[in-house]
């Protein structure tokens, strides 16, 4: 041990390691370690431990923690060691803290100071140790503490320090880009460092930066190319050679960067062609690292604007890789092939056999990589072979993560390329059977949709054949035990929708099977729910067809059991089933039209069918509906009191403005009630509010509940753009029944439905892309026609629905905007700080009060103090009211500016011209503000309610105008 200089270890440590090494079981090891922890706990807190001993304890602690035991009792000692003067002890301390602590640990605060000091040390090893700690332990908050020193170190004479300083800066950038954004130019500077090692290290941060933002670094293309050229031409000293290759790691990094910069940029790519060609020619193919450079070259060539000569070289290298005996090279070859076939698909053909070999290889990694390649190569002519292989492999593995992935790929390929419906159904059955619980529920929904919609051709015959074959196969599969829940859901849904459709199976066959399912999987409520709904559909179709329905006894007992179920969902379904069975054929047809799961349901969001009812009510003397915008002024009055407790926070008006707005929304139903109970729910996003303006959709609680039900009843999941007239328009029950499947997912509001669609869209686009790719790769085979059809349909369906839900809204939005009082003109907004524009819609309750006070001429407010407030020096009045705070001071300034233009030494006075202009809108703003001041000053809470009551019956228009003006005032004063 002595020969190893400072790396001194004691006998005790050796014994510990030995005994752990010899431990025969995990339990024995744990016992030894726990004993060691006890010893260390005792010893480490003894006073006056020699440094050498202490260092050894810390090393032992590190060792113990590496074995997975808690060594936190010693962290503080490690921190203490970093303060030591001895390099050896200090380095050990730093090593321990970097391994023990994370950047948010409480003890970090004790280290930052030491790090700061050490970064300034004249011993470069101390500096390096500190930089190492900086990388690991400095978080966003502490970056500023060390940043100046780190930046200084970028110019350190030792290249090792410069290198590490760059890395530390890079680390800062990763943790908090904003804190070092002004220092990014340093990376460019260091690229010209005269030490190639530092230059090479700089490539790491530059690679990250370029990955994020290619365009800002296009100017560096030539520099990178010339560096690469020099490296490849062996201009660097021999010291940088590795296995006879000139600085291969630098070459690889440079090639990665060039691949990014050249992607989709013809001009930049052309600059790279020569050097890439050179590397292909010169590179040594016998060493591992040489092949690494080759591989990186291929990646680069396949990423930049294609050049036929380079592609040929790349293809040659790939074929060499694939023919090699080394699994590593085969792996890289397959990966490279996957990249290159995007550009030149024909090269895949030559390597078919090699690829098949890789597929049969016992090496799992290689196999997976090959499946990835096959996935990329799949077309309608080979889909059955590839998917069958994939499924076989899927069944053979246990790794759930990969099983999930490969299952979803099978599904994707099958959906895209299925040569026949029969094959598709069978494939899906296999996937669900073996990986049902792993696949995304969306996959199941897709399958249901495909079965419901058919394959896109307007051939009803084919569609119904598809359905019958599905039903047939499902009835067969149901005999097997332990089917995954997702698969059972699909089965139940399909049996319910189409079980009796072709007349091959009687209702009692189907219902019997469904009852069996519900019984066999009684612990799975979702499956049960699907089964009950399927039962209901089957019976409904029977009734609608005029046949007499005899409920099977087991079905009867199932229903009775569920009528008393703890799950409200199941209970409701059972009641619905009971109700449907009691109805006559005509009614049943209305609520349960057969094969209508794809039909869109039109929702009358304006609730126009209620017009007559409203008319009647108004005639009887009810208050007419007032739109939200008109109401907002009044409503906030009611809220005034709730806002009172916010007053002390007026000094920091950051959020306070946001608060009142959502109140407007939440109070809509109580339009004319003066209640003050409703607590405002903060909802910061203004744009959303405008979307939600269509008031009818939120109006009466009963109506909205019904509406929601309907919306989630809309079978958007499977909806196709309707070419046929709607079968059902407004009856909510019919919608419920139509969507047996969607309902199970639980309540979906309009918003969430839309979201689902938004999230589905990208998927659709991807498949689109792939279709195009495949078409260009393999020259559109006849079967290819199929894919676009499916893809299109999905996208059409979704966009259609999205549009549908949007259109009525936007039109209403426009309407409501028209009726709404004009918003404050933009130039007024500009007066305030730019960041405040978002608070425009928010209302200050005080301002509203002012407005109302003014319009209604509440005499009670204008008591003795009015005289004082009318005097030009309003500010003095405000200065005496501490809780009003800065914000109101600003108001006061404005006010005085308004009332007495000569007072110009106030900051708010600059806003004067606009204010005078806007004040024309409201009747006498001055008075109102003054009165408000009074009210506040005198704390006339008690009287406010009475104002509100007085105000509400009339004066809405006036109040509104004032309020709007007050808003502009608020803005100006911020």
């Amino acid at each position, binding site marked *: 041990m002595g020969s*190893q200089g*400072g790396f001194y270890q004691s006998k005790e440590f050796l014994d510990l390691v030995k005994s752990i090494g010899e431990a025969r079981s995990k339990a024995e090891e744990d016992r030894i370690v726990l004993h060691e922890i006890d010893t260390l706990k005792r010893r480490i807190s003894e006073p006056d431990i020699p440094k050498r001993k202490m260092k050894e304890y810390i090393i032992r602690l590190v060792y113990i923690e590496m074995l997975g035991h808690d060594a936190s009792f010693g962290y503080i000692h490690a921190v203490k060691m970093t303060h030591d003067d001895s390099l050896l002890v200090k380095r050990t301390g730093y090593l321990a803290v970097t391994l023990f602590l994370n950047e948010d640990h409480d003890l970090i605060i004790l280290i930052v100071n030491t790090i700061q000091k050490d970064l300034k040390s004249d011993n470069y090893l101390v500096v390096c140790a500190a930089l190492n700690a900086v990388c690991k332990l400095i978080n966003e908050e502490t970056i500023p503490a060390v940043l100046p020193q780190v930046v200084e170190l970028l110019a350190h004479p030792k290249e090792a320090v410069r290198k590490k300083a760059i890395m530390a800066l890079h680390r800062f950038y990763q943790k908090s880009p904003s804190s070092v954004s002004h220092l990014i130019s340093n990376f460019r500077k260091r690229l010209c460092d005269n030490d190639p090692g530092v230059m090479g290290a700089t490539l790491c941060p530059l690679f990250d930066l370029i990955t994020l933002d290619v365009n800002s670094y296009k100017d560096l293309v030539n520099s990178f190319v010339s560096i690469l050229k020099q490296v490849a031409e062996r201009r660097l000293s021999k010291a940088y050679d590795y296995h006879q290759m000139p600085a291969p790691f630098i070459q690889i990094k440079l090639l990665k960067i060039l691949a990014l910069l050249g992607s989709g940029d013809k001009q930049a790519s052309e600059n790279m062609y020569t050097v890439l060609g050179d590397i292909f020619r010169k590179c040594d193919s016998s060493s591992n*690292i040489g092949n690494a450079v080759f*591989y990186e070259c291929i990646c680069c060539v396949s990423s930049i604007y294609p050049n036929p000569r380079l592609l040929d070289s790349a293809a040659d290298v790939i074929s060499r890789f694939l023919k090699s005996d*080394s*699994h*590593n090279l085969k792996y890289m070859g397959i990966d490279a092939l996957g990249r290159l076939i995007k550009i030149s698909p024909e090269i895949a053909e030559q390597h078919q056999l090699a690829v098949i070999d890789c597929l049969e290889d016992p090496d799992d990694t290689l196999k997976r990589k090959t499946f990835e390649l096959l996935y990329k190569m799949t077309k309608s002519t080979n889909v059955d072979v590839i998917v069958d292989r994939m499924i076989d492999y899927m069944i053979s593995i246990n790794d759930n993560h990969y099983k999930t992935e490969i299952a979803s790929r099978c599904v994707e390929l099958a959906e895209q390329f299925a040569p026949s419906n029969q094959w598709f159904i069978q494939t899906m059955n296999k996937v669900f059977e073996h990986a049902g619980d792993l696949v995304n529920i969306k996959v199941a929904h897709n399958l249901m949709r495909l079965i419901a919609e058919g394959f896109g051709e307007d051939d009803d015959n084919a569609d119904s054949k598809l359905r019958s074959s599905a039903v047939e196969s499902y009835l067969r599969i149901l005999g097997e035990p332990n089917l995954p829940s997702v698969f059972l859901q699909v089965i139940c849904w399909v049996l319910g929708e189409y079980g009796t459709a072709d007349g091959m199976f009687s209702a009692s066959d189907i219902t019997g099977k469904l009852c069996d399912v519900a019984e066999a999987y009684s612990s799975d409520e979702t499956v049960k729910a699907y089964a009950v709904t399927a039962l209901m559909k089957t019976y409904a179709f029977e009734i609608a067809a005029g046949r007499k329905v005899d409920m099977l006894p087991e079905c009867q007992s199932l229903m009775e059991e569920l009528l008393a179920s703890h799950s409200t969902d199941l209970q409701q379904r059972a009641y619905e089933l009971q109700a449907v069975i009691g109805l006559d054929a005509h009614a049943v047809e209305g609520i349960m039209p057969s094969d209508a799961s794809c039909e869109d349901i039109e929702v009358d969001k304006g609730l126009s069918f209620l017009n007559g009812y409203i008319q009647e009510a108004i005639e009887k003397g009810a208050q007419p509906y007032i739109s939200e915008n008109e109401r907002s002024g009044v409503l906030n009055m009611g809220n005034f009191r709730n806002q009172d407790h916010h007053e002390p926070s007026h000094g920091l008006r950051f959020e306070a403005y946001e608060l009142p707005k959502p109140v407007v929304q939440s109070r809509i139903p109580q339009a004319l009630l003066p209640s003050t109970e409703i607590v405002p729910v903060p909802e910061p996003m203004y744009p959303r509010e405008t979307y939600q303006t269509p008031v009818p959709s939120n109006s009466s609680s009963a109506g909205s509940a019904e509406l929601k039900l309907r919306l989630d009843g809309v079978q958007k999941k499977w909806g196709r753009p309707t070419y046929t007239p709607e079968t059902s328009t407004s009856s909510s029950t019919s919608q419920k029944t139509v969507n047996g499947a969607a309902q199970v997912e639980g309540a979906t509001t309009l918003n969430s439905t839309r979201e689902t669609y938004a999230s589905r869209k990208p998927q659709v686009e991807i498949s689109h892309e792939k279709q195009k790719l495949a078409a260009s790769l393999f020259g559109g085979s006849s079967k290819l026609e199929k894919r676009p059809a499916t893809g299109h349909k999905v996208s059409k369906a979704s966009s259609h629905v999205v549009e549908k839900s949007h259109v009525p809204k936007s039109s209403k939005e426009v309407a409501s905007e028209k009726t709404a009082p004009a918003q404050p003109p933009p130039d007024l907004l500009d007066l305030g700080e730019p960041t405040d524009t978002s608070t425009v819609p928010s209302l200050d309750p005080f301002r509203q009060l002012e407005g109302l006070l003014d319009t209604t001429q509440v005499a009670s407010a204008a008591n003795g103090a009015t005289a004082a407030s009318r005097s030009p020096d309003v500010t003095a009045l405000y200065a005496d009211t501490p809780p009003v705070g800065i914000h109101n001071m600003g108001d006061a300034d404005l006010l005085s500016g308004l009332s007495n233009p000569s007072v110009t030494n106030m900051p708010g006075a600059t806003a004067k011209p606009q204010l005078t202009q806007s004040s024309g809108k409201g009747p006498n703003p001055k008075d109102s503000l003054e009165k408000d001041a009074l009210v506040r000053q005198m704390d006339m809470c008690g009287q406010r309610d009475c104002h509100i009551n007085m105000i509400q019956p009339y004066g809405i228009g006036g109040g509104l105008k004032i309020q709007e003006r007050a808003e502009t005032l608020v803005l100006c004063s911020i």
Partner: protein
Amino acid sequence: MIKAVMVMNTQGKTRLAKFYEYLPVEKQQELLRGVFAVLCSRAENVSNFIDAESIFGPDSRLVYKHFATLYFVFVFDSSENELAVLDLIQVFVETLDRCFKNVCELDVVFNYSKVHTILDEMIFGGQVVETSSSEIMKAVEEISKLEAASNAITLIPKSASGWRSR
């Protein structure tokens, strides 16, 4: 970026573990176990690469190399090249070999902090900073020398003064 470096023996005992993103101890252990489980299921003469996404999450690759009784494992993301990382392991092991003269498992265990020093010279904050084993050796030797010196300077007076005060 390199996410983690691990050295474990064929029995699954961890000999070195360094994670470049902070992970709690339990998570580290879980990952180490996960990696070992995959490693020992690998046959010989297969590739040195493993799809590590199921253990380390998306965008993670694993390259390992088996030397005598030890597995050297590097985990990294798509910004590194698998073959190059394989050579990086080679550089690491070569350096260890130079440092300890025919390195064996016990050297790694007993010279725990020195192995860390070597690794820190190679990989800094998850980025590869040095790939030449002679450069690394130079740096490490310099550190050893200075440490030995500082050790002598600081420890002798300390013990002397301690002795005097007694």
